[in-house]
């Protein structure tokens, strides 16, 4: 049903689907099993899900309480330590663990304190985009007609703007570029993806017989939207939003790298990567560690998205 997110994997013809649906759940003596419950049972056993949630939980913890992980300040530098860079494995968690940067600041401390910028941007943009895009998509898909035509054209216009280029232009308009300014710039251009997914899902679901059945009973628009359409349209939106979250984090890093996103003194992986590139020959570790952190974070969210997609889409089982 609402598998808007999945097109390529759909069975190309009748060949692939045996008439005996092996996954068809038939009479079970056990208790009620909701689709969400089934998905959860699936997820719990998925190693990708476990790895990604552990990573994400750790990242959230780090961004909420960075001082739990390091007592060193990310901004206090001592030039004595200038570009000292051998990882000292025996000193896990100490300021000198991953070496120092140009100004003698602990790379490890900066990694830890930079997490919150990335994670905040990712989560905040996703939240805004899901709410705004979701509402737009729902209105557009459910009401159709003129409303849909207008909203869809607006969506197309925003969709047509290259994401990073557009964000750069928006950011140019701000003198002081805080985390929230970056969030605004990314959300301003990012909502279209969710709108499209939501609209597609709603259009499919509003033609389902159970929606007709609810109308035939005399259900009002609110009930149909929130009891019948939204719960069934959520699955593809959740998947797309989770995967996009990783994308927003890397977009923030890219913008910061280009000098248009966050800038010093804000601590962020993008800022550090930008600074590290200049010294890649002298002190590669300054570039290496924030890059690894960034990759792992993005990967964790994409893995989570894929795991959720597999769990929510019974056809792939």
């Amino acid at each position: 049903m609402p598998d808007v997110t999945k097109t390529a994997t759909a069975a190309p013809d009748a060949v692939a689907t045996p008439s005996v649906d092996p996954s068809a759940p038939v009479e079970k003596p056990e208790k009620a099993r909701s689709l969400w419950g089934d998905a959860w049972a699936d997820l719990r056993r998925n190693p990708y899900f476990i790895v990604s949630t552990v990573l994400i939980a750790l990242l959230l913890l780090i961004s909420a309480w960075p001082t739990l992980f390091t007592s060193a300040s990310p901004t206090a530098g001592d030039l004595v330590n200038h570009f000292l860079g051998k990882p000292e494995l025996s000193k896990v968690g100490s300021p000198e663990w991953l070496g120092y940067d140009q100004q003698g600041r602990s790379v490890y401390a900066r990694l830890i304190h930079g997490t919150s910028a990335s994670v905040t941007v990712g989560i905040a943009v996703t939240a805004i985009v899901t709410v705004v895009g979701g509402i737009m998509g729902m209105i557009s898909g459910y009401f159709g007609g003129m409303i849909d035509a207008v909203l869809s054209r607006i969506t197309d216009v925003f969709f047509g703007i290259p994401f990073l280029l557009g964000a750069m232009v928006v950011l140019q308009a701000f003198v002081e570029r805080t985390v929230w300014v970056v969030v605004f710039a990314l959300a301003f251009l990012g909502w279209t993806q969710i709108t499209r997914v939501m609209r597609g899902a709603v259009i499919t679901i509003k033609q389902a017989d159970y929606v007709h059945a609810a109308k035939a009973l005399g259900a009002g628009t609110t009930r149909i939207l929130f009891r019948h359409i939204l719960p069934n349209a959520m699955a593809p939106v959740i998947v797309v939003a989770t995967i996009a979250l990783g994308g927003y984090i890397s977009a923030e890093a890219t913008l910061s790298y280009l000098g248009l996103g966050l800038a010093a003194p804000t601590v962020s992986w993008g800022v550090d990567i930008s600074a590290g590139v200049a010294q890649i020959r002298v002190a590669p570790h300054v570039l290496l560690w924030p890059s690894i952190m960034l990759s792992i974070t993005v990967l964790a969210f994409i893995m989570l998205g894929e795991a959720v997609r597999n769990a929510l889409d019974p056809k792939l089982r």
Partner: protein
Amino acid sequence: MSTIDKTATVPAPRENSDHNGPLLEVKDLHVEFHTRDGVAKAVNGVNYSVDAGETLAVLGESGSGKSVTAQAIMGILDMPPGKIPQGEILFRGEDMLKMSDEERRKIRGRKIAMIFQDALSSLNPVLSVGYQLGEMFRVHHGMSKKDAKVKAIELMDKVKIPAAKARVSDYPHQFSGGMRQRIMIAMALALEPDLIIADEPTTALDVTVQAQVMDLLAELQREYNMGLILITHDLGVVADVADKIAVMYAGRIVEQAPVHELYARPAHPYTRGLLDSIPRLDQKGQELYAIKGLPPNLLKVPSGCAFNPRCPKATDLCRTEIPALVPVTEQDGADLPGRKSACHFWKETIHG
């Protein structure tokens, strides 16, 4: 293998080098699907055979394993999650399950072709019908584009598509459901296979079109002297074209009989129940007989005879012992050729 140029003349009987048995023989086939909830036993020891020029109808409801068996024969089963732990599929005496992928590919399409229920999703929407039909000749016979197109038109004529010449460049969506099914049949026929497997070929069509398509299929089968396996759930469609019928339930054949005999005197309570439960067109009936209970859960096939929870005649024997598919005889012991039943009480069912 015969070449295509023969189509103009009446095809000669298939010369068949050294094999004298049936065209296709399925022996003790098992298929299971490994799912999250356990192992679904879709096919549990199926035996059947088809001769050239013969129509075998495989009748069953959803979950009976009728389509899975066909997919196993064609080698298009999704594996995994599907698995064939046991059994043989003999085509002209050779076990296809032991062949290499390359050998199987050679048989598929050329010797055994398949027609599906949903013609629209089986045809490529972005290629013209003529191109798709011609592809068979270009790929398998190395024909030129032009010759292949001529052949495509010939085939479309053969399956009685009006104005074939004008429509050869049309795309699948420009044809009606009945016409698309004809194109599917033309495609299956293209390489003059020895055996066609038709999986619910008319289920998606309207009754008036159904009749046209079934007639065409039967006519072509006679003309080419092909074997035909017709898979369906519709007792009506089967009655019109089949020579013999195999009734499947929960992955097993429960009854096998020549078509007239099955309808006149079913030898399995499931067959009898099915026949009694369909309303008649030519008379107004009373309350319909209904087979009680639910179709079997393949993850938990009942012990003994799989039909026992729904059977009016079930005894303790049925709940413990799986009935074998045994020959059915007249009351006096006289042979009933081709009749078999997998019921402990077939005597009571057929003669009672």
